[in-house]
């Protein structure tokens, strides 16, 4: 008798075809826009064209020479760095309390610490703006940093908690049993295991703070606008590939962060 491969019913063939098609379409849909933007940024002519009619870096040059844009990049970098620092400083210890804590109301604490996730960025932005006005504090880069830290705090806490929960607390006990004091155990045992996750959390927080529009539109200073806000206004007037160029730079930055995350906690952990 001739041996056949698994014979598949027609409905399975149909289902499989549909699955593959939809998946391919979805993946294409995910990456195509970014790739198109990068391609468009090389277009020599002064308007959008795809595929690009030539290759030029002049738009990148324009970006680098644009004082306002470069200033906004600096503002964004500074803001992101500060937000990252604040979130790490208060978020990492909070994660410890959430994971290793043994006190009543821990679940409520967790919910509260992660609650900013449930707020749209816009709400955090407006709320900060109003509260600032109430206490006579103007929109400024300080307000931006403070409000963005609220928005980004859950990222640090979640990533740290996930890693911490996976650590074996008995290792700390073993360290103590072998004579190490509290600080030494933390430095030799706990922290080294945590370090990759902290790096990933820092990178993720940095890029989220760098990229953020929804909070920044409300809390940033008119004079020192972060890059996404600057782009927001630019997009409504300028139709040259300049925006494509700066967007491409942002996309490349995102790939850098992607690499950092991949090398530390691994990309597959980002979904949890």
């Amino acid at each position, binding site marked *: *008798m*001739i*041996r*056949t*491969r*698994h*014979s*598949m019913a027609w409905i399975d063939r149909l289902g499989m075809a549909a699955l593959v098609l939809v998946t391919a379409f979805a993946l294409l849909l995910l990456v195509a826009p970014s790739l198109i933007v990068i391609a468009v940024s090389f277009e020599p002519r002064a308007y959008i064209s795809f595929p690009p009619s030539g290759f030029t870096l002049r738009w990148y040059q324009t970006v680098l020479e644009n004082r306002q844009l470069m200033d906004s990049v600096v503002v964004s970098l500074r803001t992101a760095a500060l937000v990252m620092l604040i979130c790490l400083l208060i978020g990492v210890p909070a994660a410890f309390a959430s994971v290793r804590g043994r006190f009543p109301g821990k679940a409520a604490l967790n919910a509260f610490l992660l609650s900013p996730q449930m707020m749209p960025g816009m709400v955090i932005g407006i709320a900060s703006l109003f509260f600032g006005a109430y206490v006579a504090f103007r929109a400024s880069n300080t307000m931006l940093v403070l409000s963005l830290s609220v928005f980004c705090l859950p990222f640090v806490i979640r990533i740290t908690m996930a890693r911490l929960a996976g650590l074996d607390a008995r290792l700390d006990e073993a360290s103590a049993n072998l004579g190490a004091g509290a600080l030494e155990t933390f430095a030799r045992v706990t922290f080294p295991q945590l370090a990759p996750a902290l790096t990933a959390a820092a990178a993720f927080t940095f890029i989220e703070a760098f990229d953020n529009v929804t909070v920044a539109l409300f809390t940033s200073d008119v004079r020192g606008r972060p890059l996404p806000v600057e782009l927001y206004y630019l997009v409504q007037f300028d139709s040259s590939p300049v925006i494509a160029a700066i967007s491409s730079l942002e996309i490349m930055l995102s790939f850098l962060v992607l690499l950092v995350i991949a090398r530390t906690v691994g990309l597959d952990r980002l979904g949890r």
Partner: protein
Amino acid sequence: MQNRNAMDFLVIDQVSKSFGKLQVLAGCSLGVPRGTVLTLLGPSGCGKTTLLRSIAGFVQPDSGRVLVDGHDISGLAPNQRQVGYVFQNYALFPHLTVSDNVAYGLKVRRRPAAEIARRVAQALELVDLGSYGARHPAQLSGGQQQRVAIARALILEPSVLLLDEPFNALDARLRMTMQIELRKLIERVGITSIFVTHDQLEAMTLSDNVAVMRSGAIEQFGPPLDIYDRPQTPYVANFIGRANLIAGNSANGFFTGPQTVRSLVPDGVATLVVRPENIAIETGDGPGWAGTIAFATALGPTVEYEIDCGWGEPLRAVVARDFGRGTIPARTAVRAVIVDPQAAVVLSGARHDGH
């Protein structure tokens, strides 16, 4: 090694399978007579589960065939094969009730609702879960879940039932009871069954035939007691029950040693297999191996002795408890004597061949 004959209901013919560089099955062949129970026995990694899954179609062998009642089912997809399969963790659909779980296969076959209801009720009665239909699997105990899994498979009236370590997830107390229950059920239904297990006691209890597997191949096949009494390799001897493996030589039809043991293997290096319950301990002069008691464990009805005969590995003897004499103290000089030389088996080759 005759693993099969022409009258067998289920036949596995030279099945091989590799996953990448790892060869998991290497030319397995065996036959299961209709209505009997076969146990695939072996340690983890020996390929027994892969073989079972090959019969069900979850694994496609690289070569070889599987035949049921003369039909080659090797080319069929798993949903075309009509063999019952009970998973190790039962694989009950948690989002369906017990009744819906059991009815699943019938619904796939588009049987009328009235017939489904009737047959589901029957199936649940068969496994003694008549009133549990409306519950969800998470509400049942391990033993109950297992029974639902069995009902779900049997309701489709398959010709073959495959079970992957079905008692693994149960606690020891429940295991014995469930094994006997299952055996009775299978006999009542009269279905050809194959179990997979690493527990040799289970194999002895449940099966008409046992296939001892090692590294993807079948080392020995036969009724359980046959395998116990006449192991064909040191591996099998050690896997089923416990065995003393004594190194020596076979010469002129006898095993060299302080007792007369007939040998059926050619002259050369040989191993003598003696079960611990086949060794008696005597003092004074006489036949047997001389040694001293190294360790004694009183187990209740029996006493286990380790006798150091100077070979490195001690001889093990299990004797019925002597209420008069008590346990023989350590360092006593004794003789280990084979009680029934005919029950001892001489195997060709060294003791650790292939271990």
